[in-house]
């Protein structure tokens, strides 16, 4: 076969949501998973039909933040796979429901295969905002999505105000530019707004910051607590800015 047939179906599935955000960062531990999960929560409580897709196959953790046991996450089938409804407006897909959270180690080729399978079978129709969490680094999954789904995904770069993280973001931004991404959304995590000037200098769309809030540890695993946490107002601002910039 010349091309992977799943690519075409993936494009079709991802054309439904108004916005598909790809949360990336070449550095780990900057808060990609926390930010994508919180953004999805905020989007859903703001009354929008929302999707959350966890593509970190080796280290899936969105279900831990949401406090979901892999055994309760079940998908219905209807011309594909329907994501699991976590809340009224929140639809969710993670592989832990298939792996039962058993540890797996995937080489690049397998990760790429798993990615296209999931993008081809999981349907996001009726979803307005879709947030995709990705593994750290820039590997097979990122290259696949960023090239093949260029007209669909909006990259959100998450960074913390540390020297190592910024150096790593420089590299990622260079790569995204080369790939043809003009609009790169930016979130400062565990910071205080210091990175606004960095973002402006790099021509990134600064959408806000989330301070370092040590109490977040206690909210992990409980949607209720997350929704009451101090983080939420910051995430709401970012959410609104993201929508503002991507109204198109």
């Amino acid at each position, binding site marked *: 076969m010349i091309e992977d047939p799943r690519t075409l179906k993936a494009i*079709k599935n991802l054309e439904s949501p108004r916005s598909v955000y790809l949360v990336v960062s070449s550095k780990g531990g900057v808060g990609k998973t926390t930010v994508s999960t919180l953004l999805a929560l905020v989007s859903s409580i703001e009354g929008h039909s929302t999707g959350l897709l966890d593509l970190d196959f080796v280290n899936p953790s969105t279900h831990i933040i949401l406090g979901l046991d892999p055994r309760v996450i079940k*998908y219905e*089938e209807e011309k594909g796979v329907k994501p699991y409804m976590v809340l009224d407006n929140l639809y969710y897909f993670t592989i832990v429901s*298939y792996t039962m959270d058993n540890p*797996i180690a995937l080489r690049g080729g*397998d990760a790429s*295969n798993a990615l296209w399978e999931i993008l081809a*079978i999981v349907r996001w129709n009726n979803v307005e905002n879709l947030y995709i969490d990705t593994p750290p680094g820039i590997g097979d999954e990122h290259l696949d999505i960023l090239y093949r789904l260029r007209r669909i995904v909006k990259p959100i770069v998450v960074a913390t105000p540390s020297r190592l993280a910024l150096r790593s973001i420089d590299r990622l931004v260079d790569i995204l530019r080369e790939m043809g991404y003009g609009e790169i959304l930016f979130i400062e995590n565990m910071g205080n707004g210091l990175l606004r000037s960095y973002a402006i200098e790099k021509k990134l769309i600064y959408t806000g910051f989330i301070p370092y809030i040590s109490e977040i540890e206690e909210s992990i695993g409980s949607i209720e607590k997350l929704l009451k946490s101090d983080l939420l107002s910051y995430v709401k601002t970012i959410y609104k800015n993201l929508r503002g910039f991507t109204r198109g």
Partner: protein
Amino acid sequence: MVHEWALAEAIVLYIENQGVKRGRRLVVKTGALQSIDREVLEFALRMLIKEHGLELGEIEIVEEEPLLKCRNCGYEWRLDPSSMSQDVRESIHFLPESIYAYYRCPRCGSIDFEIVKGRGISEIRVEDHD
């Protein structure tokens, strides 16, 4: 297991994308790991072929037996999905890479093995097309 519909749609979009409109026969090779329900797949294909205005005559679905190979010790083995527990089989049906959560090299216990063949759709061929 009606997620076969999604696979059928991928196949039809692929054929369409190749610019093929009609042909005598459509041959699809699927991997046995996915335990695809042939009748469902064929049914979905017929519906979608019609919907997309294609004319493809016969449909043949050929299943390829899975072959696994250990990257650690080189051992090759086959795996019969019908020997799997219902849950595991279903997980692998939806996502063949779930196999890494449940299987190991039978010789050396390695988690580092590859699916050489029999994973998913590996061939879509329209015979005598124009």
